[in-house]
């Protein structure tokens, strides 16, 4: 390292030493990190439930649509009243499943 290099090194180091900002407390960062960690854990725990809800909604909708498609001819030929209760039940279940699926979580994750 020549003379100019050592001068540059000194100036940069001095500039770094003179930098004295007001830093946030380490406790604050530690607790923020832990809150975020807990939120991530909670999301991880809730993920299987979300998947099951989604599956339930898909199954209900598939059953409902399958019944409709399978009994399309009967619907036209006047047997609609026989399958109507079943279709209504399937429809209600589908709506409930979709409603549960898109239900707002109780705790919203904090913005950071």
């Amino acid at each position: 390292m020549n003379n100019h290099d050592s001068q540059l090194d000194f100036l940069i180091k001095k500039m770094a030493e003179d930098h004295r900002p007001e830093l946030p407390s380490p406790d604050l960062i530690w607790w923020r990190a832990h809150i975020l960690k807990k939120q991530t854990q909670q999301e991880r725990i809730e993920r299987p439930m979300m998947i099951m809800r989604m599956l339930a909604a898909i199954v209900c909708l598939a059953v409902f649509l399958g019944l409709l498609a399978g009994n399309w001819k009967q619907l036209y030929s006047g047997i609609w009243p026989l399958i109507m209760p079943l279709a209504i039940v399937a429809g209600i279940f589908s709506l409930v499943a979709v409603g549960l699926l898109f239900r707002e979580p109780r705790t919203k994750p904090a913005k950071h």
Partner: protein
Amino acid sequence: MFVATITRCLTMTEARIHERTSQGEFEAFYLRTARPLHGYLCRLSGDPATSDEVLQEAYIRMIAAPTMEEQHRKAYLYKTATNILRDHWRKLKRGKEWMELSHLTEHVHYNLNLPVDMAAIFERLTAQERAVLWLAHVEELSHKEIGGILNVKEKSVRVMVFRAREKAKDLLERAGFKGTHE
């Protein structure tokens, strides 16, 4: 039943002790590294508010990361902070300016005791040149470590450091600095 309760209590106490030790370790590490990291981010971004945000985010990610040795932790911290800052710039559609960022919104001057305004010299360098100089001179990291932080090959870092030094020296000379320090 009684034994199980005692075991559970002991496990919980151990966990709390471990958490306190980790917190203590973190505090010590934070006190050693936060100021230089903040300086690095300030020089890179030119904005103290952004530096504060990025600093906190980098430490939070470090806490969430698996335990590592001090030197690795420091490199991880700088790499994370650099990436967060880069993402921040990308969000502001300024990502393309990463290599040649010269226009800054806010100026950070802290080194009033120097024979020359080094901060002003730094501001005339690109973000990458500033990062390279800071990491090489202040943190005294190896070329390999700098490469790891900036996602650049080790050989390229050598060239980058050389060019950044030459440019900084040239700017110093132009600023009238003759070299009073020995």
